[in-house]
């Protein structure tokens, strides 16, 4: 390569000064960048608004591209379905006939179940979802594991709300913009979820490892064994995640800590469901003037 001409700009004072000024700007700017980096390391949500406003512009782009991709991706399946429709029809008819008896039995069981539940007055705590939206992109070139959700504070999404998919927990909302939100995935190295084992209720913490897997560490006093296939669900401790959402399955035997794989693989997920935080922070205490004078002062 030939030497660049900018090294020695000749006798022109103007060219020399502008080159020098460029270096001054670069050095000053890198100092500013170092300060910004220190700030964002010490206080990660410091620049959330800046990121959210860029996200407002970029999220529709990702969403549009993913829509086009889904449309193209559905073409081969559509052709295959069209060709296989006769065989499939016959197979489905046979299956329907086979399962009719099973279905009738399940229907009576379900009816019994309803009556018995009413008898017991079991009140199920159903976590009502805030919104169902798609995850449209992720931090694929970074060591952090964030995803961008195609819904924001206009749809009711707020910071700290858990996000789950059909198979299990995906993560929680970290920052929100008006129409987009940034989700901290379970596998992020800074994500911690309180969980318990379904078999015996043994409490543990599921921490992201950064390589797509989770570290499940026991928080019980006694030594515990983790066997492959142990299933962990959220315990509801901490107040963010509502209980009994599937989180991880252990893949390797371990004592006190083991490696698990999360149930929801967000690269295959279609829709993500944003739920309310299990126990939201208490509302601010009303001022004395706002309270109605119904309660008598204590004697």
């Amino acid at each position, binding site marked *: *390569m030939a030497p660049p001409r900018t090294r020695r700009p000749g006798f022109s004072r103007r060219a020399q000064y502008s080159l020098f000024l460029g270096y001054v*700007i*670069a050095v000053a700017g890198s100092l500013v960048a170092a300060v910004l980096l220190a700030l964002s390391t010490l206080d990660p949500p410091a620049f959330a608004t800046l990121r959210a406003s860029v996200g407002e512009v970029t999220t529709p782009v990702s969403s549009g591209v993913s829509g086009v991709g889904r449309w193209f991706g559905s073409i081969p399946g559509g052709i295959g379905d069209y060709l296989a429709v006769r065989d499939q029809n016959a197979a489905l008819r046979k299956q329907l006939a086979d399962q009719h008896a099973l279905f009738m039995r399940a229907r009576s069981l379900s009816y019994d179940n309803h009556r018995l539940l009413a008898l017991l007055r079991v009140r199920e705590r159903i976590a009502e979802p805030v919104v169902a939206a798609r995850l449209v992109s992720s931090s694929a070139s970074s060591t952090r594991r964030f995803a961008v959700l195609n819904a924001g504070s206009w749809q009711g999404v707020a910071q700290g709300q858990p996000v789950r998919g059909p198979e299990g927990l995906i993560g929680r909302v970290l920052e929100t913009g008006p129409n987009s939100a940034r989700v901290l*995935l379970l596998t992020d190295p800074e994500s911690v979820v309180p969980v318990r084992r379904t078999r015996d209720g043994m409490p543990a913490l599921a921490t992201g490892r*950064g390589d797509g897997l989770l570290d499940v560490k026991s928080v019980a006093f006694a030594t515990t064994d983790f066997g492959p296939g142990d299933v962990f669900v959220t315990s509801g401790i901490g107040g963010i995640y509502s209980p009994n959402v599937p989180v991880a399955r252990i893949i390797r035997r371990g004592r006190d800590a083991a490696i698990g794989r999360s149930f929801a693989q967000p690269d295959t997920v279609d829709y993500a469901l944003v739920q309310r935080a299990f126990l939201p922070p208490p509302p601010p205490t009303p001022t004395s003037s706002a309270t109605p004078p119904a309660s008598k002062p204590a004697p």
Partner: protein
Amino acid sequence: MRAVRGPFDEAPDRSFARFVPTLSVMAGSALTLWPLIASVQILPPFGLLMLLGWRLTRSESLRVWAPLPLGLFDDLVSGQPLGSAMLFWTLCFFMIDLIDQRVVYRTFWQDWLVAAGSIGFCLILGRLVATPIDAHVDTVLLLQIAISVLLFPLAARLCAMLAGDEEEA
């Protein structure tokens, strides 16, 4: 087919060509917007690759302070802490300036080596500031660095292609 410009025809409009390097680096950074939910960091830093491509093949195309705004944009879309790409990309430019003084006439292989060093520097420091030290991301990080280094000739070729019009004029 392009019409050959005669000696007395007026020069074609070059006002857009000034922004081609900047826009291509920003497009590289914006590739993280591709709808893909990755469970590990599999995408090479295309913004950095384009930046190094421009710097090493056409050193006058970007000012010495250009990595600051470009790095800011990359930080905003990549999920790294704000300021990391700004700082590390600018430091890369300074290092390449020093190398320009020492090794004046370089072959492409030496440029590739410089780019490999810069990519490793940016990605490793980016991992150190973004993720806790005990996270298990290092194996994939090495893979990501290797892929990025292997993609550098492609980026350099792309830069040469984008700058090709300039040469003909």
